């Protein structure tokens, strides 16, 4: 059955008692309000994470380049993103004369709607999921594919050559890299037997030994394919060709200014967070805490949320790290990497996982090693 935050809250007696006295319509209304509160919280948290992402990016890059980075606004410059936001909203909103106004207006919606809708299924903890759809990861893929459309439309509608090139590149890159990502996810679905993200996290354990990344050799390779894929899907370096500033000015959002530009940037940074947390859920155990400390209590949930965010931020750090370490790929190399390396390997992984399931009945490689070890030891006695 689909778990939502409301069904989780109904475990507590006062909530369920309160629900019992409501008419169905009122119950729905109350649910909407509860959902609204939590969704609002999550959206804000993620927006702040996205904002902090820009800050982190600048700070980490500064660190790597032996600079100081933003340090004026707030302690260690941590409020820089707020200042940027305020600056953005104060900027003039120019719209190119020759652009397609309708599409120019609508393009940011695609990006932001697509990214925000993915937040609905992220399992922050065992109970704290907005909604645990049983087609969770598939839904996430579907909604996230709207971003590609937004990028393309942003590039197209500006009627500028750089934007157009960036948009085309962006769209084709996003859709191309969706394939290895999807196939890597398929192999995890194969191991879990469910599409729900919470089930996937729950099928793993708190210790790295139980994570899917160490489940078998195929998932180990699969994690790296997934990670490379999400880098490209979020237009992060070394795959930031759609916004390659040395070639395309700023890529698909060249003509956007002020708040409209801010939405693209926000969408991008939130998406990075979303895919990082997705990677952590699929491969790194998600919200699982070692020994399941805290259990199902509030403390436990908070610990799980902490673990979740910790893993996601770790990956976020790696993403930024990669950006400032690796040079950008050429566009032909980009396509070669996707279609000639990642996709065949991902398909091979999928088949390999299926065989693994078939022959070893879904046991992880560590379990198998331990079993053989135990058997061998038993044989000597």
């Amino acid at each position: 059955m689909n778990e939502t935050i409301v069904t989780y809250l109904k475990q507590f007696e006062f909530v369920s008692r309160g629900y019992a006295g409501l008419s169905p319509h009122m119950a729905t209304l109350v649910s909407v309000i509860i959902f609204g509160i939590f969704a609002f919280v999550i959206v804000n948290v993620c927006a702040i994470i996205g904002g902090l992402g820009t800050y982190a990016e600048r700070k980490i890059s500064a660190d790597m380049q032996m600079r100081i980075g933003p340090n004026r606004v707030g302690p260690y410059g941590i409020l820089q993103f707020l200042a940027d936001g305020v600056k953005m909203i104060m900027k003039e909103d120019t719209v190119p004369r020759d652009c397609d106004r309708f599409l120019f207006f609508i393009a940011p919606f695609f990006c932001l709607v697509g990214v925000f809708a993915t937040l609905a299924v992220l399992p922050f903890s065992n109970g704290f999921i907005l909604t645990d759809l049983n087609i969770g990861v598939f839904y996430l893929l579907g909604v996230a594919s709207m971003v590609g459309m937004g990028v393309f439309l942003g590039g197209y509608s500006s009627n500028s050559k750089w934007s157009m090139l960036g948009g085309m590149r962006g769209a084709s890159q996003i859709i191309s890299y969706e394939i290895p990502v999807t196939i890597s996810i398929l192999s995890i679905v194969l191991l879990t037997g469910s599409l729900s993200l919470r089930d996937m996290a729950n099928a793993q354990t708190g210790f790295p030994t139980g994570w899917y990344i160490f489940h078998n050799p195929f998932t180990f390779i699969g994690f790296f394919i997934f990670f490379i894929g999400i880098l490209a899907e979020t237009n992060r370096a070394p795959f930031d060709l759609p916004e390659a500033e040395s070639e395309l000015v700023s890529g698909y959002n060249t003509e956007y200014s002020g708040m409209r530009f801010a939405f693209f940037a926000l969408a991008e940074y939130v998406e990075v967070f979303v895919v990082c947390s997705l990677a952590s859920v699929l491969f790194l155990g998600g919200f699982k805490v070692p020994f399941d400390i805290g259990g199902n209590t509030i403390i436990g949930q908070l610990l799980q949320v902490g673990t979740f965010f910790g893993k996601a931020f770790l990956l976020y750090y790696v993403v930024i790290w990669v950006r400032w370490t690796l040079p950008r790929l050429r566009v032909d190399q980009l396509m070669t990497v996707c279609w000639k390396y990642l996709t065949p390997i991902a398909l091979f992984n999928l088949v390999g996982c299926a065989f693994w399931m078939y022959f070893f009945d879904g046991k992880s490689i560590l379990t198998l090693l331990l079993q053989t070890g135990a058997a061998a030891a038993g044989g000597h006695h």
Partner: protein
Amino acid sequence: MFLKFLFICSSLAVLFGSLMVACTKDIMHSCIYLFFCLLGVAGLYLTLNADFVAATQLVVYAGGIVILMVFATMLTGGSAFQAHNKFGFKKIPMMGSRETYIIGFISAFLFIAITFKLLLNLKEGLTPLSGQMPFETVRIIGHKLVTDHVLPFEISSVLLLGALVGAAMIARPRRG
């Protein structure tokens, strides 16, 4: 209540989108309206308890087909291409531009009205089965795909193969 809300939103998207596809001049805008329309269809599928099909609709249509459409639009001159009537009234009276809409509407309406009248005759046993539907459709679809419907499943891969090879051959840039 939420069901109704979802239904109303989706149906508005469907109605608006599909009518705008027909009525917009700019092909790129048509694609976007088609996108809305398809999103609405996905919403309708959700209200009909078909969550997996709805997600497939999103993944394939929203993420795939529409993008392909806009790519193809770009490759064929984009919105710069303005459709105008080449034959004009004289040769074939039916192919005028405004008249086309009128005649198209009338003939289509007639055809569809009659077809749907036939469909509506299938009334028996059409009470909504509330609560009886299995909610986890993806599992049932999976089971069906590997047992009863395994042949269409395999053949669809052949269809996709044909589409891939054929389309790649047609669209491939050629020498000379």
